[in-house]
């Protein structure tokens, strides 16, 4: 999911982007680069890594209302560093961006927050865990027990998360390769959250319960030059098994996947094992975005159709993309989340 780097780097100066990431200039110098032998340590690694260029705390949830209606929820905190150091005061070169969304079958609510580091407006603390921007927060005594809040002009939510399984490290012990050229990130997940809480929507408050999935990832490296976007899936099957898989679209696509069994043991699959093929496209925000997919992982006998719960789940944020809950049918059934970027108009 290093491709989310693109998203964050769009947040950075456009001229620099046009020159390619190397054009970010001397500020790029000095950032730490993910290393395959770096062992992840917890709870320290739940906190921020200011010496890396980009990082995120990315939570998605599939929920059900009292009447059985499906809902989706997103809470994301991005960190983007202009220079590999932290500090206090306005001049601290750390920028923060928060995205929150609630998706129903026929509506999609989005909010965005931006903040400077160093003044207390946004940040992450490893223990006791707290990630916040403005009044949005994900915090708790440990990462296993969290309260999650966010609000926009039309919606708000306040939910609690309880982990029922272990952390899952992607790739090679959390070292996740993102291209044939070797770009990589540090990447782990907590895909076993039980969620209960309340969504506040224009139609009123809704009590919900469901499952949530937290992704943690940080890196300093850009996409390969030919990579234009990605399609990322996090699927939870009714069997208790889970799948994380992504396609990096480029001259030749690069795929990667992690199969997680019901007890949380991961199996990593390298390029080519996982495939995702668009079946139908949907016009949203002036673009054609595939909202029905055929997803396969033959080694696990997986051949499913993934359909957006609401094809209009467009994130009209300063860096726009598509992110929303999906329904899984076929060899396996279940729910999940889909994120698609790089579908420019």
């Amino acid at each position, binding site marked *: 999911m290093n491709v989310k780097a693109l998203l964050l780097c769009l947040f950075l100066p456009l001229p620099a982007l046009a020159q390619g990431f190397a054009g970010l200039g001397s500020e790029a110098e000095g950032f730490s680069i993910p290393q395959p032998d770096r062992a992840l340590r917890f709870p320290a690694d739940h906190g921020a890594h200011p010496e890396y260029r980009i990082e995120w705390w990315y939570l998605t949830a599939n929920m059900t209302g009292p009447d059985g209606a499906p809902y989706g929820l997103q809470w994301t905190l991005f960190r983007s560093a202009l220079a590999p150091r932290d500090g206090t005061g306005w001049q601290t070169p750390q920028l923060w961006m928060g995205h929150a969304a609630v998706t129903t079958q026929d509506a999609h609510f989005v909010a965005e927050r931006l903040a400077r580091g160093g003044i207390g*407006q946004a940040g992450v603390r490893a223990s006791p865990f707290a990630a916040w921007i403005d009044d949005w927060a994900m915090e708790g005594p440990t990462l296993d027990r969290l309260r999650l809040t966010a*609000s926009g002009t039309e919606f708000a939510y306040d939910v609690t998360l309880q982990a029922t399984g272990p952390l899952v490290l992607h790739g090679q012990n959390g070292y996740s390769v993102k291209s044939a050229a070797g770009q990589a990130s540090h990447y782990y997940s907590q895909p076993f959250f039980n969620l209960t809480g309340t969504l506040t929507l224009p139609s009123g408050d809704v009590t919900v319960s469901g499952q949530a999935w937290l992704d943690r990832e940080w890196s300093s490296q850009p996409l390969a030059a030919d990579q234009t976007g990605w399609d990322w899936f996090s699927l939870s099957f009714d069997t208790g098994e889970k799948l994380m898989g992504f396609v990096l679209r480029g001259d030749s696509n690069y795929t990667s996947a992690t199969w997680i069994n019901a007890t949380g043991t991961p199996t990593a699959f390298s390029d080519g094992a996982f495939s995702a093929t668009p079946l139908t496209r949907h016009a949203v925000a002036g673009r054609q975005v595939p909202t029905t997919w055929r997803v396969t992982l033959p080694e696990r006998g997986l051949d499913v159709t993934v359909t957006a719960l609401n094809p209009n789940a467009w994130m009209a944020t300063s860096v726009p993309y598509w992110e929303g809950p999906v329904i899984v049918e076929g060899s396996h059934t279940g729910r999940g989340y889909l994120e698609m970027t790089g579908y420019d108009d």
Partner: protein
Amino acid sequence: MTRTVLSALLSFWRRNPLQLITLLAGLALGTALWSGVQAINAEARASYDAAAESLGQGRFDRLGLRGDDGMPQATYIALRRAGWAVSPVVEGDYHGIRLVGIDPLTAPGGLGPVAPQTGDLAAFVSGPGQIFGRAEVLQALPDSGMERVLAPDMAPNTAMTDIGLAQRLLNRDGRIDYLLVSPDQPLTRRPLADVAPDLILTAAEDATDVARLTDSFHLNLTAFGLLSFAVGLFIVHGAIGLAFEQRRPMLRSLRALGVPLWHLMAAMAAELVLLALVAGALGVLAGYGVAAALLPDVAATLRGLYGAEVSGQLALRPAWWLSGLAMAVAGTGVAAAGALWSLSRLPLLAGAHPRAWAMGANRRGQAALAMVLLTASFGFAIWGTGLLAGFALLGSLLIGGALALPPLLSAVLRLAETRARRPVAQWFWADTRQQLPGLSLALMALLLAMAANVGVSTMVSSFRLTFTGFLDQRLASELYVRAESPEQVAAIERVAAVHADALLPILSQQQTIAGEPAEVYGARDHATYRDNWQFLEAVPQVWDRLAAGEGLLINEQLFRRARLDLGAMVTVTPDLRLPVLGIYGDYGNPVGQVIVTETLFRQTFPDVAPTRFGLRVAPDRTVALRSALSADAGLAPESMTDQAAIKALSLSVFDRTFTVTTALNILTLAVAAFAMLMSLLTLAAMRLPQLAPIWALGLTRRRLAGLDLIRAVVLAALTALLALPLGLALAWALLAVVNVEAFGWRLPMFLFPADYLRLGALALLAAGFAALWPAWRLSRLAPTQLLGVFRHER
């Protein structure tokens, strides 16, 4: 044929260059003053727009602390963490430039030079940083390592940079002056009272709306520009009318030669448009000069009076010079309408009698119109409300007065004629009356200019007199100091106990009262106020009743705008409702003001601590007090201002306010004098048939020239006499109607006879000078030319 007709028409101007100059100069001068004023107004408006655009002035609600010391940054963070979508701003004076620091990540929509999505955000918020401003601002900034970015759309005298840098440059680390409140707020946020109870929310429309405050000032300028233009049109009207009458024979000949009427009219219209464009272009050029010369004063006035930043530099805007040209063409059209109408009705075989023009056939109609307008002005004075009614009053008064001039002069001359016994005297008065129509336009211009001069100078001088007296009563304390911290306040109190006779805290708080932006002041019960303050209206024992907390005082602005008379209940806060005990004059302040006792003020606004104080001390001990404050309370010299310095500053702001008015006034007078000269010169050439017989009867040329000179002075003197009442009426209208509407205060009218005498003498001198050259030419006229009159007698 068109070419032939046009060249025939234009040949007239070639033969009469003086008339051409009159026409062009009159129109150019009028256009110059009009477009100059327009340029100034356009520049000021552009500056306000830029301020609104780049600083969000008046667009967003604001959160600020009571007093003007700003809030700690922690308050901002607390609000953000409570869900408030607010954005911090730091503002201050940096080497004479208003430096504004913003946070581009939280700034509400479109504010500031960089947006997160588009601008070079990284360069703005990190590294050496960037500073945005107009070219002259960037030049004036000292080098502090930042990248200077040219931003022509930025408000004048304003530089914008990142809030972190601004805090450092302004030495305000960890402080925030105010917060802009985004119109889009999240669904859930904690109440302000729970998070930051000491902050006050100011609605967007209440925040200093510079454009609204300064509207009346610009309307004033526009009125002056229009007046000058009208005077210019008088000249143009005279020149075109004269030229038309003088060309009657030519027009008749052209018609007789077979030129169709419509063709002739089209050719004449084309000729006029051509002349209007030439004069308009000259006028716009000169107007640019006028504007460039006056703009620094206007900018100073606006800054002093309203705190509005206006660029002192002039930009050439197409809308402005096009409208200047259009005004010139339209004005010429108005001035020439009569002439073209006459042409359309010109009988083919009519006699060519240019003198017929000078007789002015419709004097009766003019007198009737004058009566109507003067009556209307009475109506406006009595029943009119609003600034527009005020200007309608001025307009009808001035035009009515001008139109009434020729009939009045004619009546006076007729009276003099019947009283005259000697033949030369009889001839003199009769001849003067006969010349009146030809001179009346110039005399009307003179009347207008003089009346405006009398009116405006009376208004300004009355205002200045009132203002000086007001400053004396208002600035009663000998020394004014400003404290930087609570510790310094304590130190000042200690020093004052020893060295000063009294310490008067200045407690103030912004508040919306009766729907008007206003300031609430807390006054300590002290003899200083009782001895010095004067009221426009007050209940008996006003100070005792105020001290007892039985009511409050309001300024005249609030009294007029909110219509709060003595005894009216004023809601200061929901908990504080008191009747009005007194109304005081408060000149030079654009907003309303309320005064309550110090006790009530401290109860109502417990968080407002005084940072400014007035100190009473015997004048000879002021120096000792200053040095004690500096040594024992650590006050910087710039934190202490003595009474004299404040008075001088206030008066200089006042004087600058009216520099522009005075300058426009003098220019108008100059235009009128010029009109007089041109009329006399043109008349001189036409009067030979009247003079020749008198000369033949034995009056010398020198004697005739002398009589001409006397005539000009007599006419000017009569005009000046009539201008005086008109001017005083104008002054009354300005003081009692326009000022009240524009600024919210009514001023007592004082008379300045010496000034009027000096102005009258100036007018006579101007008329004398204007007549000198034509008279000198007459005295040197070759006898053959006078004889020629008899030879050419038709």
